[in-house]
C-alpha cells in the first residue's frame, strides 16, 4: 500500500509546504520538475540503459517554450507547457530513430554527444539563442489570467503536484503493460525478444520517446518557474544529476524519481546552507554510499516493504 499513496503524499506535502512557506514554492517546483526528467531517465534505466544526455531534451523544451512566449508574448503558460511536452515528444521520436540501435556505453556516449552539440549550439549564435546568457521569458498568463508572481507560483505548484500523481499512475500502468515488460526484457535478453518476433529497437524507441516527452515537460516547467533558460540546462553534468536522481529514487516504481528529486533538492539546499560551496562534494559522497548500500534506490525499499506487508 505504501507505494500506492506516496505520489499523493508527495503532491499534498508539496502543496502544504508551498502554502505555509511561500519561498519554498520555487525550489519545490524545480525539484518536482527535475523529478519528471529523472522519471524519463529511469524508464531507460529499466531497459538497462543510462543516458548522460537527457538534459538535452529538457533544455530544448525550455528554449522552445521561451522562444514561443517571446514571439507571441500573450501565449498561455499551459500552452507553453504543452509545447514543451510536444517538443520533447517530437525531438525524442526523431533522435530515438538514431540512438535506439545503441546500447550500454555507446548509448550513453551518443546521448551525451548529442546533448553537448545542442549545448554548444545554444551557447553560440548569440543573436538567435542569446548565447551563454540564455533567453528570458516574461511571466505569461495562466489559463487566461494575468497573475502576479505569488499566485502564479502557487498555480504552477498545483499543476506539478497534480501531474506527479497522474504521471506516477500512468507510468505505473506502462511498466505493467506488455510494452513496459518488453522494455525490461531489453535489459536481460534482446536476442530472445527478437526470437519472439518483437523488434527490440521499436520497443526501446517507444521507451525513449516517452522518456524524452517527460523531459520535455520538465524543461518547460523549469523555464516557466525560472523565467530564464540557459545552455547550462543541457550541460552533461545536469544529465548526470538526472541519472543520480533516478538512481537515488530507484526505478522500481515511478514515484522513485520524485522521491529522488526531493531528496536531491533538499540535499542541495542543506548542503549549500550548512557547508556553503561544497554541495557537489556532499552529493557525490551520498551517491557513492548509495551505490553500495541501496543500489536499487529508495523506492525499492518502499516496494519491498509493500511486498512484505502484502505477504504477511
Amino acid at each position, binding site marked *: 500500500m505504501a507505494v500506492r499513496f506516496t505520489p499523493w503524499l508527495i503532491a499534498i506535502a508539496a502543496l502544504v509546504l508551498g502554502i505555509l512557506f511561500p519561498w519554498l514554492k520555487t525550489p519545490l517546483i524545480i525539484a518536482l520538475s527535475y523529478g519528471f526528467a529523472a522519471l524519463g531517465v529511469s524508464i531507460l534505466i529499466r531497459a538497462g540503459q543510462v543516458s548522460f544526455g537527457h538534459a538535452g531534451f529538457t533544455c530544448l523544451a525550455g528554449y522552445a517554450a521561451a522562444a514561443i512566449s517571446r514571439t507571441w508574448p500573450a501565449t498561455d503558460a499551459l500552452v507553453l507547457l504543452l509545447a514543451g511536452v510536444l517538443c520533447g515528444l517530437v525531438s525524442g521520436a526523431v533522435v530515438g530513430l538514431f540512438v535506439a540501435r545503441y546500447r550500454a556505453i555507446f548509448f550513453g556516449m551518443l546521448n551525451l554527444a548529442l546533448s553537448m552539440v545542442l549545448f554548444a549550439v545554444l551557447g553560440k549564435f548569440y543573436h538567435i539563442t542569446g548565447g551563454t546568457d540564455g533567453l528570458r521569458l516574461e511571466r505569461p498568463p495562466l489559463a487566461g489570467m494575468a497573475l502576479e508572481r505569488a499566485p502564479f507560483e502557487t498555480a504552477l505548484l498545483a499543476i506539478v503536484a497534480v501531474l506527479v500523481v497522474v504521471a506516477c499512475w500512468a507510468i505505473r500502468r506502462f511498466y505493467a503493460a*506488455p510494452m513496459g515488460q518488453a522494455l525490461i526484457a531489453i535489459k536481460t535478453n534482446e536476442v530472445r525478444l527478437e*526470437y519472439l518476433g518483437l523488434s527490440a529497437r521499436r520497443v526501446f524507441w517507444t521507451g525513449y520517446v516517452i522518456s524524452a516527452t517527460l523531459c520535455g515537460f520538465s524543461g518547460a516547467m523549469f523555464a516557466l518557474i525560472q523565467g530564464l533558460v540557459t545552455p547550462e540546462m543541457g550541460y552533461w553534468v545536469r544529465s548526470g544529476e538526472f541519472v543520480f536522481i533516478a538512481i537515488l529514487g530507484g526505478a522500481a516504481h515511478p514515484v522513485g524519481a520524485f522521491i529522488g528529486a526531493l531528496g536531491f533538492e533538499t540535499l542541495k539546499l542543506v548542503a549549500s546552507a550548512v557547508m556553503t560551496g561544497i554541495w557537489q562534494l556532499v552529493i557525490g559522497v551520498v551517491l557513492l554510499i548509495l551505490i553500495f548500500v541501496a543500489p536499487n534506490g529508495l523506492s525499492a525499499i518502499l516496494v519491498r516493504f509493500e511486498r512484505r506487508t502484502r505477504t504477511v
Partner: protein
Amino acid sequence: MQSLLQIRGLTLSFGAVVVAAGYDFDLHANERLAVIGANGAGKTTFINMVTGYIKPNAGTISFDGRDITKLNPREIVRLGVGRSFQLPQLFLEQTVRESIELSVVARSRRLSMFTPLAASASSKEVDHVLEVVGLTARAHELCSSLPEGHRKLLDVAMALVLQPKLLIMDEPTSGVAADEKHPLMATIMGALAERKVTSIFVEHDVDIVNKYATRVAAWISGRIAADGSPEKVMNDPEVRSVVLGH
C-alpha cells in the same frame, strides 16, 4: 510434396574454418529431424543461419516456399520458425509466468502500453502452457532462480507458445540431469505432437535420437555426412567413427 525448409548450396566460413560447405538440405512437414555431430561441426551455425542470426556467404534458404536468406530472426520467426537455444535465452528479471505471457502477447505482435500484461494474455492459455511444461509450481519465480532443466523447458515453451510451423531446438537436453532428459523430451515432443509442429533438434544422446527422431542428419565439419532414417545414419561407418566415436 514440396518441402517446408529448403536449403541450397549453403556456404559459410570463418576465415579458414569452414562451417557450411555449400550443402543442400530439405525438410518436410511433420518430420522430426535429429541433428548430430561433433562440437564445431557447424550444427549451431546451421541453426543460426536458418533463423537469420548469421548470414551465409552464399546459398539460399527458403521456408514454406519463401526465400528467407536475407531476413532477420524477427521476420523469420513471424513466418513461423520457432527456436530454442543451447544456452537458454530467458528474461532473467521477470517471472516464469511473465515470460510466457510476454510470448503469448508477442504472437499478436501488438504490445499494449496500458493494459496490464496479465490482462493482455489469455490466462487460460498461459495456465495450459505452464501445465504442459510442468512449470505451474514455479510460475511466480524469477527466471534467474530456475535450475537448468527448467530453464530449458521454459526456453522451449517460449518458442512453442508462438505456435511455429517449424521448431528448431539447439540441444534441448544438454545440461539436464541424465534422469530428467527423457521426461523432458517426452514433454516437449508431446507438446509438439499436440500442435503437429515439425521439428529439428540438435542432440548428442543416441537413445533420445533413436526414440524421438523420424530422421537423422549427421554434420561433419560443415557438411552433411549422412541423412536418413535413424537406423541408416546411426550405422553409417563414417558417422560411427567420427560422430559417435565407436
